[in-house]
């Protein structure tokens, strides 16, 4: 890592101007990307009478939090649903992916090279195409309508990406480590538990963020598989809008509250996220 950056610096130094020119489109794109965020926040702070298409870009007349309080009041049970669903879904699918990746990279069994692409195939199935059989199946196993069913679906649909990430991470770890543990007397599971798991933290951070975010932001599975008692926050947000008049200011405040946990996770764990993505260069 360090060598790459320093060599890049050396290469760029004589062409400093170009570096700044590059910033112009980047800043422009960043502003463009953040515009909806601005509208969401600005509207969230406005009173009901301030909200109109004409004044959409205007700043709010003052800072008021009653919209957020109202939205939170309406959304809080569903916020809890989301947490109850997302945390087990992210943790379980990460663990399963970790064990899969470990076995597929370090304890290759006959047929491993067939199983892995089959697992990956799961990533390319459009979710819409399996909704009807999925609902029927969940009904058959009596997990339709509740949160645990949604957890199960997120775990299963998370397995391909988590397996892929961990398999690549473990491929970069010297096999000698596993062999040394075997000779030291550890079997497959003990090697995983005592040796592999403790050095998997960077990969876990990446996968947990990824799984947390995708399960939290999911709308499709949630709206199809859960009853109104068990709605996660994304579905509840959608249904907060009344049928006649939409209180956009409250709606936008709710949107912000909905987006907050994933933002928080990314900001807190983001540095590990980047480090984990580059974990191939991890050295003992």
């Amino acid at each position, binding site marked *: 890592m360090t060598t790459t950056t320093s060599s890049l610096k050396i290469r760029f130094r004589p062409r400093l101007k170009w570096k700044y020119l590059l910033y112009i489109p980047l800043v422009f794109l960043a502003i463009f990307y953040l515009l909806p965020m601005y509208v969401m926040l600005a509207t969230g702070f406005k009173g009901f009478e301030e909200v109109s298409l004409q004044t959409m870009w205007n700043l709010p007349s003052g800072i008021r939090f009653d919209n957020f309080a109202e939205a939170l009041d309406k959304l809080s049970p569903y916020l809890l649903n989301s947490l109850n669903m997302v945390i087990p879904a992210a943790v379980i699918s990460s663990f399963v992916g970790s064990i899969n990746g470990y076995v597929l990279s370090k304890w290759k069994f006959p047929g491993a090279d067939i199983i892995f692409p089959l697992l990956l195939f799961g990533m390319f199935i459009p979710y819409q195409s399996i909704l009807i059989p999925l609902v029927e199946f969940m009904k058959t196993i009596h997990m339709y309508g509740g949160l645990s069913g949604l957890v199960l679906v997120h775990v299963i649909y998370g397995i391909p990406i988590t397996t892929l990430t961990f398999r690549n991470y473990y491929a970069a770890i*010297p096999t*000698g*480590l596993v*062999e*040394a*543990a*075997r*000779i*030291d*007397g*550890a*079997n497959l599971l*003990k090697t995983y538990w*005592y*040796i592999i798991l*403790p*050095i998997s933290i960077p990969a876990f951070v990446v996968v947990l963020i990824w799984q947390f975010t995708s399960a939290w932001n999911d709308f499709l599975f949630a709206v199809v598989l859960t009853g109104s008692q068990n709605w996660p926050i994304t579905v509840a947000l959608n249904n907060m809008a009344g049928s006649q008049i939409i209180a956009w200011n409250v709606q936008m405040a709710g949107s912000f509250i909905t987006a907050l946990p994933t933002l928080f996770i990314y900001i807190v764990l983001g540095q590990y996220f980047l480090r984990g993505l580059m974990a191939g260069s991890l*050295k*003992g």
Partner: protein
Amino acid sequence: MASVTYENVTKKFGETVAVNDLNIKIEDKEFLVLVGPSGCGKTTALRLLAGLEEITAGQIMIDDRIVNDIAPKDRDIAMVFQSYALYPHLSVFENMAFGLRLRRFAKDEINRRVNDAAEMLGIQDLLDRKPRQLSGGQRQRVAVGRAIVREPKVFLFDEPLSNLDAKLRVQMRAELTKHHQRLQTTFVYVTHDQTEAMTMASRIAVITKGELQQLDTPQVLYDLPNNLFVAGFIGSPSMNFFPAKLKKDAGKVYVDTGDFAIPIPDSRTDTFAPHVDKNVVFGIRPENIHDSAFTPPSVTAEKVAAKVDITELMGNEINIFFVSGKNTFIGRVDPRSKMSVGDQVQIVFNMDNFHVFDAETEQAIR
């Protein structure tokens, strides 16, 4: 304390034969070195003994127990890896204790063994450090320590010194020899470095292309190599080879390279007489080539004309590359020698020490 026996051991990876019909009997307390060029199957042979690879055919025994189907952890072996393979998240102490903890040793016993090993290796002060805080030589010692604490029947080493710099390698070589004497245990050691093999081994097994070439003490391998490969592999700088023909003239047998002919001493005429007119390879080690001004008095000296091509002063000797016709060869001559590049010189082959190999079978004739 244990003997190790390879009996007709073969290992195939798909169609590739990595180890072919290997037969080695390693005695108790022996320091056996498997040596050969990279890709020759020596590491595979070691991994078969460790249980990290499955044997395709034949059997390996530790003492009288066939270990083919026994898990690595139950073979009573310990292994030091080329990459050291230290557990990066564990301290030096925990790295060494790991195998003992898994075997549910008592705390006192673990402490005693780890501390004893640390003292023996001079790493007592490093026990709390993580592997990444150690130098290459220290990591190497920890890897050895992890093996020692297990008190195994057989120690396996897979090129343990090849990641160290030259100076440290010499030092670690001496340390490993010392540990072997102290531990009184069987060592099986893999290396591609013939110097390591020569300096440490009680016996050396030279392997190439998956096959055992010769198994003997370093001295015998050096003095009496069985074939062309062993002759060229053992010794540094390596033995000089000259394609030649055996000729007989007036009762004397000559080695005729086309550029020069050297008479074979009478005492060995009988050995070579049956091979007259055969294509052979004549071999002579660099130290048996002398500057005629500094030839030791008692040797059977035969003069050869050559041109000096390159000289390398080593201090205690000079390595000189000679050219004679189509042959180039190297001599380790007396440092007082005045030969310089471009000179046409008469040099001396000491015919008390030479080798002749059948050009076709590559086997030694003696």
